[in-house]
């Protein structure tokens, strides 16, 4: 059994997440797309672990999940704070730091 289809699926999911980050404006949805990208990479890691018969890939995926959890906590708190002051969850509204 080849893992190539898994890797290709991972690439497709990553690309979709990427485009989502670039096109969606709702901060929460953007964040979801970031999670999608992380998950796509996790899939690749797990697939490669199987390809090489080595559990290090699964460990890496595990760490990615931990980091993602921490990231989500902080990121959502930031989104909440911004929403609380600006009454908006659009990433385009927070654009004062510019030229």
């Amino acid at each position, binding site marked *: 059994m080849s893992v190539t289809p898994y890797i290709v699926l991972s690439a497709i999911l990553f690309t979709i997440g990427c485009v989502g980050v*670039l096109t969606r404006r709702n901060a929460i949805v953007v964040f979801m797309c970031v999670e999608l990208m992380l998950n796509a990479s996790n899939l690749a890691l797990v697939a490669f672990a199987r390809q090489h018969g080595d559990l290090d890939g699964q460990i890496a995926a595990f760490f990615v999940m931990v980091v993602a959890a921490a990231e989500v906590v902080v990121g959502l708190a930031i989104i909440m704070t911004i929403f609380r002051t600006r009454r908006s969850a659009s*990433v*385009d509204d927070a*654009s004062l*730091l*510019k030229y």
Partner: protein
Amino acid sequence: MYALSEGAIPVVDPTAADGVFSLLWLVIALPLAGAAILLIGGRYTDKWGHYLATLLPIGSFVISLVLFISLLGREDGDRQVSQHLYDWIQVGHLDVGADLLYDPLSSLFLLLITGVGSLIHVYSIGYMAHDPRRRRFFGYLNLFVAAMLTLVLAENYLGLFLGWEGVGLASYLLIGFWQHKPSAAAAAKKAFVINRVGDIGMSLAIMLFFITFGSTSFTVISHAAGGATDTTMTILGLLLLLGACGKSAQFPLQAWLLDAMEGPTPVSALIHAATMVTAGVYLIVRSNFVFDLAPHAQTAVVVVAVITLLYGAIIGCAKDDIKKVLAGSTMSQIGYMMLAAGLGPAGYAFAIFHLLTHGFFKANMFLGAGSVMHGMNDDVDMRHYGGLRKLMPVTFLTFTMGYLAIIGFPGFSGFWSKDKIIETALADNWIVGLCALLGAGITGFYMTRLMLMTFFTEKRWEKGVHPHESPSVMTVPLMVLAALSLLGGLFLLNDFIQEFLAPVVGAVPHEDPPIPALGVTLLAVVVVAVGVAAAWFLIGKRDVPRTAPQDVSFVTRAGREELYGNQVNDVLVVNPSRRLTTGILAVDKYAVDGTLTGGPVAIGAVAMVARRVQNGYVRSYALSLLVGGLIVVLALLAVNLA
């Protein structure tokens, strides 16, 4: 008689000062101390400062007189005394001492400067009595006298230059003394700037002296002068002439003199009679060892002198301002002196002789003019004078003495001195001589015109003017100067002045003039008489209009415009320099500043465009991140697949 063979150029070879001559430095130090006390002491000296300032030049005069008598007591060949004060500048080969040189030439100048200067100080006590800045004025006067004394006592060109510049500074301060008047401020600036042109010649000459002879001392240079090439001497002579032209208001640097009349009248007297303008003549006579070896430079001196002589005389004829007429006359008379100085050993003595007599009668007339102005509420327009002889008898009489002296009325001092110059000029070159004669005639005309318009003819006074005689503190100096104007010719008695100056300037060669001396004298008197008569018929017999008529001949109009000297300066020098400055300013502003600021501005402009990339949208940044990552991936692929 001094044992110098005829035609030989005398050298400066002084002996060290001893006895009474060791007081020489005091002559300069006294007025200098006066200037320092008055200018540094400030208003604490307001009450008594002008008396001190008057006493100090008188003290100098007394010392000068003592020194002069002591000098007369010495042998002819022993009449050069030097005093070494201290080492002034010692750098490498340049060794300049603060040395003073006292010889017959300086001794006469000393008497003139301190004598006439003291009288002018006395006169100023009356003239400046009500000026709020009187103390300052007297401080400047003392500074002026001290600088002039430095000039004539210095033993080297650098010391002379120190006095030279000091005189320039003091004249600037005094001409612009009434600085609240824009015209006075402008006149002071003009005098200063034009003098700087002359000073360039002077300083170049000093540098050339140092390069050629390794020294600026008169003693060294006069000994070594024969060894230099003719070209060097000619260049030196021309440079010195340029310096002399600036200081003595000779053509083409004459423009400042008439404007300098903006200063208080005693200043005009001091500048025009005793001190500043004679410096040029002094310089040329002092540098006789240069000019005697540079015939071309001498010719240049004569040409300049003749032009100035007629130039000043013509201006004197056209002006209505009494002080400007006298200023024109000064130019003309200095021209006579320069003419004599340019004629070589034959004329040096007469140049100095005329300088002395001119110092007397011109100081007399300037102070007289000041007295008239004093009585006429400071009005200087002669067309507003008339008939003043009854009301100002002392001024009138003393002025007449000066008048008779300047036109060369037989017996008066000017007669002797001017006659000698014309005689010498005729003997040298008949064209020059005729020009000098013509100048004498014109002098007779304009001075008579001045006399008639001021003291004779009917009254043309402004309303509310009550002419009155000046106080005795002003008239006594006038009387002294009038007496000197009358008696100044005594110097010529028994050929005193020629022989007295011979150790410095060389003996006067005895030539047979083309016309006998008596004939020349007679001719001169006749020419002057014609001038006087012309003035009598043109002015004395007619009504003098209160305002200057405009329908006048071209010559008169040109004379009123000072023969367009200012316009020529404007066209040739002032406007081009102004345009040059504007141009340089523009180059500096647009080219230099533009280059310097252009770079940053260009970078700033690029940045203004480039900063648009920083639009604040996090999604844009993410996009560039994606594109960058894509490029990296593509590059890696390209490298790996290649």
